[in-house]
């Protein structure tokens, strides 16, 4: 039982760290794209197409790919004066309160995951990958050709003719983020990490100064 929990924990933390790397890359991408756009517009009078859409898309990925790592590192915004106060006088009560809070948070994230699952399915099925779509030609059997066709059918965001992107990868990122956060909260409640403790992760350094506040 213990080994299984530890196994899940190892996988969950690794996923959270991996997702964090992707999310972090998108922040750098955001800085680059915006600057290219400013220069292109200011100097060459030719703004990039679809900057707004790319920014929104990146925001979704940044937030929901980083969220599990934030949860794991105990960096989700909270005001911890009271818990710290209790910790110094009644450490057991403080530890129990922390576990209860993590359990409640787990339930809440599970509710969100529950509502986001059909959202993702709808967005994904709108493409009708590899099945007969409601409108348009039947699959031809050519794997690549069908995939390209299907990609064009997806529910999209953006402005047609300027820039569009299918919704489902963004919905998948949201589902992944809230789902993994549910699991991480569950582990925290189950294993009863000390208040402010983090689930182990390679090279993590929780800095007190930035945990609660922007």
């Amino acid at each position, binding site marked *: 039982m213990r080994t299984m929990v530890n196994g899940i924990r190892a996988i969950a933390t690794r996923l959270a760290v991996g997702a964090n790397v992707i999310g972090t890359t998108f*922040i750098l991408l955001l800085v680059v794209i915006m*600057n290219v756009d400013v220069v292109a517009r200011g100097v060459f009078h030719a703004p990039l197409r679809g900057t707004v859409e790319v920014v929104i898309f990146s925001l*979704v990925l940044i937030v929901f790919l980083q969220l599990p790592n934030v949860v794991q590192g105990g960096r989700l*915004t909270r005001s911890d004066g009271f818990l710290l106060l209790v910790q110094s006088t009644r450490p057991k009560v403080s530890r129990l309160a922390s576990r209860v809070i993590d359990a*409640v948070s787990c339930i809440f994230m599970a509710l969100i995951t529950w509502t986001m699952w059909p959202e993702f399915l709808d967005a994904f099925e709108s493409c009708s990958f590899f099945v007969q779509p409601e409108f348009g030609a039947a699959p031809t059997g050519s794997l690549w050709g069908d995939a390209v066709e299907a990609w064009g059918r997806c529910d999209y965001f953006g402005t047609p003719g300027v820039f569009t992107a299918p919704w489902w990868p963004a919905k998948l990122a949201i589902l992944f983020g809230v789902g993994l956060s549910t699991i991480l909260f569950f582990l925290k409640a189950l294993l009863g990490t000390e208040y402010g403790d983090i689930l182990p992760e390679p090279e993590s350094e929780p800095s007190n*100064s930035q945990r609660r*506040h922007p």
Partner: protein
Amino acid sequence: MTPVEIGIISVIAIVALIYMGVYIPVALGLVSFVSIWIISGKSILAFNFLKVAVGDGVTEYSFATIPLFTVMGLLVSKAGVGTDIYTVMNRGFKKITGGIGMATVGANAVFAAVTGSSIASASVFTKIAVPEMQRYRYNPRFAVGVVAGSSVLGMIIPPSAMLIIYAFVAEQSVGEMFMAGIVPGLLLTAAYIVTIMLMGKFWPSFVGEDAGETDTPPLTYAELADKTLPISLLIAVVLGGIYTGWLTPVEAGAAGALIALVIALARRKIGLKGLWETTIDTGYITASILFLITMASLYSRMLGYADLPGELHAFLDHYQFGFLGIMIIYVLLMLFLGTLLDTASIILIVVPLFITLIEASGHSLVWFGIVTVIGAEIGLLTPPLGISCFVIKATLNDPNITLKDVFLGALPFAFVMLLVLIVIIRFPVLSTGIIQ
């Protein structure tokens, strides 16, 4: 129970849960979810509200200001820009009693124009200014008080995370909020400097009886240029760009981040590894703030559904509090909440309750934002949860200066903040003038 009663209970429950240490987005989201369920009597509506809040919560172009200004602020701190401004200011205020204090305030004001966080200001200036003031025999309470007091400038002078958060909650333009923050920020800076001057004259025991004149060596022109030009460029691009309308706040954030990176790289204060770590930190901060905002949007929808803002309006109207009365209640409420909650939570909880009322009374929501941010920021300085004070105590790591010293030192500055807040409430033009 009527919807309004459920709404009132929810607000109280949220405040209590946050105080007990529940993650703020969870407290906001879960209580709102349950209230909507109870009020409507159907689960479907609650799930739908939740779905919309999470699915569409972050799909807003101007939210990109948060990661961009955060990355810029972190890079600027790493580049050592804070120390630079402080050195220059210190030279300028050399001959006056309490001069280092004024220099700290001035440097904080300039530093605030390139970072959006009081926490950053508090930790940077605790390391630079407090040891220096102790060296020249200033009263330790005064030293930490000045740093605590002036750290709040970080969140009033744009770019500021709190102004961005307010802009989202109140659906105002981030650019306008930034512009509106400039004059009140400078006013508070001036008020602090005058206060320190008066303290030096009439309350020397607080400043330090035998506080000596500093012996900062004069700066050469090359040093002066090296210390002031990079930050001037940054401020000119970011605030100038927004003010002239040449850059949107999002673009200004991106351009600022790039310039800050160039400065940090040119000074060899950061490498690839440092850049990556800074970006990861930015990611944590962005995800926390945006998830918080997402849940705050669910909360404000819940309030609207329970019609609590409308009822509050009717209630205050019925008892004829008048606008002055309402503002007094509002400020007192924020001061009270400031002893329980952090600044962002106060803004997110209180603003949706009052915004219908302010809008109906024909007052500017931009002005109301500045009032809210300053009012909520007073809580950074007051016990038991003055976060600026905690940061200073933690950064200082000196057993001779207790948390009590920090709070007592900050108290006069919290009082000055309150006075400035009253002036800003009385003269809305101070906030809105620069926009029109």
